[in-house]
C-alpha cells in the first residue's frame, strides 16, 4: 500500500514537470532565428507560399494560442506532421523506436555481461596485479569517446575484415541483431568501464565486512559466500548505476546511430535538427523527456524492491 501511494505521488509530481517541459520546448522552438516557413520552403519561396505555410503551421495565431495548440497535440500524442518527411511525427517515432530500443537492449546486455565478468574478477581476485589491471583498463575505457571507438570498430571489423555490416540495419531480425553488434560494443564500453570500477570497489568493500568473515568462519563454501553474501550486496548500487546509464545509452543513440547510419530515433532527431523540421524536433524532444522521466521513476521504485532497507517517501 505504501508503495502504491508512493508511485501515485511520484506520477502526480511528474505532471507539473511535464508541463514546464512543454513550455521550455515550445519557447525554445520559437526562439530559433528566422521564419520556419522560409527555412522549410527555401529562400526563393513566394510570399504567398510562405503565407500558406504559416497558416498550415498555425504560426499566424497569437503565441498563447499556439502554445495551447501544441499542448493539445502533446496530450493526445498527436505531434502533427513532419514537414520534411511528410508523415505524422508519432508514426515516425513508432517506426524508428524499434531500432533504438533494440540498440539500447543490446548495449545494456553487453554492458551487464562485461561489467559483472570483469568487475567480479577484479574484485574477488586476491592478486593485486589483476585488480589493478582491471581497474586501470576500466579507467582508460571511460576516457575514450564512443564515436571514436565506433569508427575504429567499424573500420577493423566492418570494412577491413568484413565481419559486420557497416551501415543500416538490414531487413530481417537476424540482420538486425548482426548489425547491432558493433554499435552495442561501441556504446557499451564506456558504461561497462564505469560499472566495472563500481562493482570492483563494492566487492573490495564488502569483502572486509564482518558478516563475510563470519560466513567463512562458519565453514561455508567459498562459492556460497561469494554468490550469496558478496554478489547479492553488490547488486544494489550496481543496478542503480545501470538504470541511470540505460537513460544515457538511450540518449547516446544520437551519436552511435550517426556513426553506424542506423535508422533509429537518434538519427531521426539529427536529421530533423539539420533540416529544421520544427514539429519533428519538438515532438521527439518531448517524447525523449517523457521516456527519461518514466525511467527515473522506475529506477526509484526498483530501489525498494532490491533493497528493502530503502524506505520510499
Amino acid at each position, binding site marked *: 500500500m505504501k508503495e502504491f501511494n508512493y508511485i501515485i505521488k511520484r506520477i502526480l509530481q511528474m505532471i*507539473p514537470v511535464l508541463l514546464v517541459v512543454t513550455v521550455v520546448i515550445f519557447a525554445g522552438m520559437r526562439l530559433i532565428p528566422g521564419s520556419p516557413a522560409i527555412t522549410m520552403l527555401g529562400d526563393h519561396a513566394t510570399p504567398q507560399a510562405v503565407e500558406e505555410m504559416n497558416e498550415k503551421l498555425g504560426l499566424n495565431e497569437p503565441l498563447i494560442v499556439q502554445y495551447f495548440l501544441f499542448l493539445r497535440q502533446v496530450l493526445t500524442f498527436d505531434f502533427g506532421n513532419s514537414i520534411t518527411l511528410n508523415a505524422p511525427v508519432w508514426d515516425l517515432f513508432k517506426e524508428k523506436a524499434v531500432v533504438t530500443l533494440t540498440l539500447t537492449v543490446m548495449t545494456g546486455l553487453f554492458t551487464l555481461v562485461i561489467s559483472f565478468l570483469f568487475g567480479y574478477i577484479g574484485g574477488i581476485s586476491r592478486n593485486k596485479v589483476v585488480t589493478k589491471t582491471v581497474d586501470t583498463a576500466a579507467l582508460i575505457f571511460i576516457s*575514450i569517446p564512443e*564515436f*571514436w571507438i565506433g569508427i575504429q570498430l567499424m573500420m577493423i571489423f566492418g570494412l577491413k575484415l568484413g565481419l559486420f555490416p557497416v551501415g543500416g540495419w538490414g531487413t530481417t531480425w537476424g540482420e538486425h541483431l548482426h548489425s547491432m553488434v558493433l554499435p552495442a560494443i561501441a556504446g557499451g564500453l564506456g558504461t561497462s568501464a564505469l560499472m566495472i570500477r563500481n562493482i570492483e570497489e563494492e566487492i573490495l568493500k564488502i569483502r572486509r565486512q564482518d558478516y563475510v568473515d563470519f560466513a567463512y568462519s562458519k565453514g561455508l563454501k567459498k562459492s556460497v559466500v561469494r554468490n550469496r553474501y558478496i554478489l547479492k550486496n553488490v547488486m544494489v548500487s550496481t543496478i542503480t548505476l545501470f538504470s541511470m546509464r540505460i537513460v544515457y545509452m538511450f540518449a547516446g543513440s544520437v551519436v552511435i546511430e550517426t556513426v553506424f547510419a542506423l535508422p533509429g530515433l537518434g538519427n531521426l532527431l539529427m536529421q530533423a535538427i*539539420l533540416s529544421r523540421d520544427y514539429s519533428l524536433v519538438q515532438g521527439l524532444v518531448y517524447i525523449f523527456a517523457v521516456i527519461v522521466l518514466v525511467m527515473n521513476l522506475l529506477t526509484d521504485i526498483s530501489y525498494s524492491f532490491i533493497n528493502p532497507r530503502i524506505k520510499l517517501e
Partner: protein
Amino acid sequence: MKKRLKGMPVSFYVGAVILFVILLMTFFPGLFTDQDPYTQDMNALLQGPSAAHWFGTDDLGRDVYARVIYGTRIDLAIGIFAMLVPAVTGTLIGLCAGYYGKKVDAVLMRILDVITAFPFIILVIAIVAIIGSGIRNMFIAIWCVGWKDYAKLVRSEVLAEKNMEYVAAAKTLGFSGARIMLRHILPNVIDGAFVYAISDVMMCMMVGASLSFLGLGVSAPTPEWGAIITGGRPFLTSAWWISIFPGIFLAVAGVAISFVGKGVAEKVKAK
C-alpha cells in the same frame, strides 16, 4: 606541496606528466612541429604516415600531426571552459539553495527536475540547434545544462553542514548570509565539487568532440580533434590515419585527467 604529493599512486604521476606535455602542446605547439595546421599541399593528398608527415596528410594535403598538435589547445580549452562556468554557477546555486532552503530550495529543485528530464546530450544538441552551431554556441549550450550536477552536489553537502556549530556561531556574530556561505561553508563543502570538476573536464572534452563529430560544434578548418576525426570518416579504408590519431590523443588526454582526478579523489577521501 611535497607532503601533499607524497603517497599518491603511480597513476597520478603518470597522469601529471602527460598533462604537463599536453600543456606544453597547448602553449608551445611550435616545440612539437614546424608545420602549419592550415597549409594545404595539393601534391601530398591522403599520404600515409612518413618521416615528413608523422601522422600522414588529409584530403587537402594538410599535415595531420600538426593539426592534432594545434588541436590540443582547442580541445583543452573546450574541456576547461565548458567545465569552469557551470562549476562556479552550479556551486553558487547549490550554496544558496542549501543555505536558504525553503522556497529558494523548492524552486531550484523543480528547475533541476525539468533539466534532468532531458538527457544531457539531447538537451545540448537541442540548444545548439536553436541558437546555431559553432564553438561559442556549444559553450553556451553546455553552460546552460552542466551546472545541475554541481548544484546537486553542493546543495546536499550544505544541508549536512549548515546545522554545524560554526555556522550557528557565525550567525550569532551577525555575519551576512553571503559571508557565511562563501567564507565559512564553502571551504567545507567544495571538495566533492572539486573532484567532480576534474573528471568533468574530461567529460566536457568528450561532449565537445562528439558535438563537432555531429557537425554541431567546431567546424572546418579549425583543427579540433573531433572535427578532424569527422573529416577523416569518408576515407576510413584509404586513409585510416586521419581519424585514428586525434582519437588516440583524445583518449590519452582523457586518461591523464582521469588518473590525476583519481589521485586527488583518494587524497580528498582520506582527509
